[in-house]
């Protein structure tokens, strides 16, 4: 038995490794290991007052901190039966869209694009494809701007609160968001073309899971049309070789992320994004995980269109800037949010004093851990022996990168 | 005129006085600025390392020798550490001179006792050479307390004065704390002017005409109390005791507020009301020393 170890993936967020176990000249098993130290967020929030919890949860991951804040806030609000007005929900959506832009742009332009064009990193790629890198950076910067406006800071802002916000955006800020969304749209369209002829690789996802609404939800949906709460059909198990847990949907390997979202929720896409989706529908329905990148590019278009739409609606209606009072009571609630890399679940029980008595957080990279491992296995099996070791390892790394994996959030789970 | 603007000054020479202190000899790049820069012993300048920051440093050269100014800089923190990396020919910014300085005219004809500890030698060196060069003072005593032989600032000058000072009306006395062969050699050569001990030990056996003497003190904060006691014990009037003080300062011209001392009855700015104060002022301004 030989083991090939891929030490620390590069150009992914967080620290991950893989062991490829070879027996009798054949790939027998692949172990995807998350070697980043555990951070114990569930324990951290135990006993903490609900109001401070979203700020703590944001620290799970910097790339998608706002998804964590919003998921946390949704879970808490559901526990208290708080209904927030449309204005607040729209602003949260706007924030999540900003996060899509920031995260997808980072992933597509800086991490995946070098694979597409055959460069070791974006800086070296910039010499030939400078325009593209610049376009990506401007989308990313804009996404960050939205995160700053809505979330309070580019990273780990604490503006998103149960019941509303600390500070509401100004007219000028909303106008700027509307204008920039419009202006950046042509860059996003170009991205769709760039990622449209990606090779198929990785596993073929049999099951897709997403939230029932495009950016968040109160239930999960799956490709078998099941509408459910995560604990009904998703089972988590711990692994002896990784700090991350692995999940199965009804006992099967499944996928969350951009591909499942566009496949399951295409009717909710904005006009141009929908058209682009239809153009590539056939391809996308092949279900290879590598297609996730194409879906992400389509989502860039979606996010810009949607952000513009939301900003306009808010500008037309005007902001009332009022928070809903939160009444502390004993309760339980789950927040489902579509983080850029897929479904994110925050589940809390809160006691009568408003302190957290139970918390469970399931992150997209954890949900995707199994299919990531499977993809590595299939890719390894296909290529072992036919490729030299360097190209072999490179191919496997590319496979992992297709997921837009984020290791920090997987602990419970893979870094740049 | 913008008082915060600084003038280009070129480093003509750098001498390593001790491992911690370097002597920078500077000249303004602009010849007008050279002519206009008039200063008194005891005044200081603000050194400006552009893009990094500013800090106050006493002038340790004497106005009697024109064409250059000298600064003795001890390496203690970020700016001074950087200053020590500069080379001859580099250009820095200087503004000043600031502060009141010692009343040299008023003291003419009298005996001067300069009491210095450690880096306090820097401003007093200006007085020392001013007094010697001008020849207008009856006699000059320099009582200098140093940690060790290696720490003696302007060592060549001090040894020169130990040897030949009396001839030009200047008596140097040196106290050292850490024994070393060099010190013992000095002590043997210049006994009783050199001894082991602290600066106050140098007062032993010293008598002076309290009507015709001024004492000028500069040293670390802890030193003042003990030196002043020696002087008062010999009945020197507080009005004849001058000391130069140090406080953190940013502007040097009485704006930034850092060097404010005193209480409700007296507020003083070290930078513009000082840095030279008489002991009377110390008595009426709490916290001055």
């Amino acid at each position, binding site marked *: 038995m030989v083991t090939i170890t891929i030490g620390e993936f590069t150009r992914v967020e967080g620290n991950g490794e893989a062991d490829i176990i070879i027996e009798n000249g054949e790939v027998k098993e692949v172990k995807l290991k998350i070697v980043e130290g555990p951070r114990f967020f569930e324990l951290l929030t135990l006993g903490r007052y609900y109001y401070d919890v979203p700020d703590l949860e944001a620290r799970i991951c910097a790339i998608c901190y706002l998804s964590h804040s919003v998921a946390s806030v949704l879970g808490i609000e559901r526990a208290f039966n708080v209904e927030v007005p449309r204005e607040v929900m729209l602003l949260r959506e706007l924030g999540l869209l900003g996060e899509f832009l920031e995260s997808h742009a980072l992933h597509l332009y800086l991490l995946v694009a070098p694979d597409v064009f055959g460069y070791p990193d974006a800086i070296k790629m910039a010499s030939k494809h400078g325009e593209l890198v610049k376009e990506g950076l401007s989308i990313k910067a804009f996404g960050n701007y939205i995160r700053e406006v809505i979330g309070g800071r580019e990273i780990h802002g604490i503006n998103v609160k149960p019941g509303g916000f600390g500070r509401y955006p100004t007219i000028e800020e909303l106008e700027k968001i509307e204008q920039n969304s419009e202006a950046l749209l042509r860059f996003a369209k170009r991205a769709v073309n760039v990622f449209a002829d990606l090779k198929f690789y990785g596993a073929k996802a049999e099951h897709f899971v997403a939230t029932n609404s495009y950016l968040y939800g109160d239930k999960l949906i799956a490709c078998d049309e099941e509408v459910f709460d995560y604990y009904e059909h998703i089972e988590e198990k711990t692994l002896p070789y990784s700090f991350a847990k692995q999940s199965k949907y009804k006992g099967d390997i499944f996928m969350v992320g951009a591909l499942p979202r566009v496949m399951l929720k295409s009717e909710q896409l904005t006009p141009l994004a929908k058209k682009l989706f239809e153009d590539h529908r056939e391809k996308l329905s092949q279900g290879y995980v590598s297609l996730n990148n194409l879906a992400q590019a389509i989502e860039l278009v979606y996010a810009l269109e949607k952000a513009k739409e939301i900003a306009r609606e808010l500008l037309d209606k005007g902001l009332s800037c009022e928070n809903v009072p939160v009444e502390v009571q004993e309760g339980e609630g789950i927040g489902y949010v579509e983080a850029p890399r897929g479904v994110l679940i925050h589940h809390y029980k809160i006691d009568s004093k408003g302190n957290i008595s139970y918390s469970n957080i399931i992150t997209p990279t954890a949900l995707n851990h199994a299919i990531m491992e499977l993809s590595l296995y299939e890719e390894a099996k296909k290529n072992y022996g036919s490729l030299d070791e360097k190209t072999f390892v490179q191919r496997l790394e590319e496979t992992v990168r297709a997921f837009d994996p984020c290791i920090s959030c997987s602990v419970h789970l893979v870094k740049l | 005129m913008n008082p915060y603007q600084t003038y280009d000054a070129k480093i003509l020479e750098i001498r390593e006085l001790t491992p911690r202190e370097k002597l920078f000899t500077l000249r303004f790049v602009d010849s007008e600025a050279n002519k206009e820069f008039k200063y008194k012993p005891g005044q200081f300048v603000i050194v400006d390392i552009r*893009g990094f*920051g500013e800090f106050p440093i006493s002038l340790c050269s004497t106005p009697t020798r024109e064409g250059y100014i000298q600064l003795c800089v001890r390496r203690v923190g970020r700016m001074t550490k950087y200053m020590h990396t500069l080379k001859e020919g580099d250009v820095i910014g200087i503004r000043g001179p600031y502060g009141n300085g010692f009343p040299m005219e008023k003291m003419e004809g009298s005996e001067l006792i300069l009491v210095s500890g450690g880096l306090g030698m820097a401003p007093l060196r200006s007085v020392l050479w001013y007094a010697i060069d001008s020849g207008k003072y009856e006699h000059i005593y320099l009582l200098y307390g140093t940690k060790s032989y290696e720490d003696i600032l302007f060592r060549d000058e001090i040894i020169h004065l130990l040897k030949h000072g009396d001839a030009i009306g200047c008596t140097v006395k040196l106290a050292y704390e850490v024994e070393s062969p060099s010190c013992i050699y000095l002590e043997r050569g210049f006994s009783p002017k050199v001894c082991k001990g602290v600066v106050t030990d140098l007062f032993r056996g010293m008598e002076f005409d309290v009507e015709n003497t001024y004492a000028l003190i500069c040293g670390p904060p802890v030193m003042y109390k003990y030196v002043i006691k020696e002087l008062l014990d010999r009945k020197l009037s507080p009005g004849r005791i001058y000391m130069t003080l140090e406080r*953190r300062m940013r*502007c040097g011209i009485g704006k930034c*507020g850092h060097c*404010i001392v005193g*209480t*409700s*009855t007296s507020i003083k700015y070290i930078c513009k009301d000082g840095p030279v104060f008489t002991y009377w002022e110390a008595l009426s301004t709490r916290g001055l020393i």
Partner: protein
Amino acid sequence: MIILRYVKLPSENFEEFFNSLKQWGEINAPVKQGNIYSFKKVDSLKEVSLDYTRTMLPPKKFFVKPRDELLKLKEGKWEESNGTKPVVLFGVHSCDIHGLQILDKVYLDEPVDIYYKKRRENSIIIGISCMPDEYCFCKSLGTDFAMTGFDLFLHELPDGYLVRVGSVKGHEIVWANEGVFEPISEEDLKYFREFEEKRANSFKRSLNKEGLADMLDLAFESPVWKKYEKICLGCGNCNMVCPTCRCYEVCDLWVNAYEGVRVRRYDSCFMESHGLVAGGHNFRPTRLDRFRHRYYCKSYFDPSAGFNCVGCGRCDEFCPAKIEHVKVLDEVREALK
């Protein structure tokens, strides 16, 4: 034509007068921002809260900015940051006018701080009368009425304002807006006196300044300082909001690879480093020393400028630990007896 020191501005002309000030400079007036007031650029009278108590930052912020870019580093040389535009400070209270005069003593003293001077020369100060709230103690310090330091001062009347002209510029403004002013009547004067009297009786706090300076000096070892050392957060909020505090810190910052700026910002004597000198000696090593130092500094009486405190009450209103300036001084006095 009216060339008088006292004129009347009838209510119906108030807005016209306000708008006419725009030609003298950018109007900045107290605006309500959440639960505080702040001097802000305004375009119309609607935005202004004339019945404000006190702004959080005093008008000092227009002359010594909280963050003030002094010099720009270009090719190894400092260039002056300039660009002073004319401002009209509309609705300044008497205590703050006194505050500015104390700053004048510092910043206009030789060598003159050119930034301060330029801005001062480019500003018009329009004072407005006020009613004290629970924090004000200006009356006891004699800063409740401004005799100088403003261009125009508006005193509330039932049907307008009695306007005192305080400078040549003030006269020019009145001259240029001749049509909006009227001569004052006996009745206006009567109301003015009544208002001032009512105001004088509305103060809830007063500082006993009798021998204050000496009393404090004697109280150097007072146990009261120890008590407050425990309460005081040492956060510097009191310094930042005080109209007479003026300590500033300077730092050089890079704006790109080869260019920098020299910026000064408000500093506070509550910071550990404030009294620190080379060699690590700290002249005010403990919070007690720093706490006491602030009271000493504020209670210093300069014969030509008065106390370093104008009784505006900002330090009380914005102290998270609710330490009260007057109460501390009273307690110190009490402990001495």
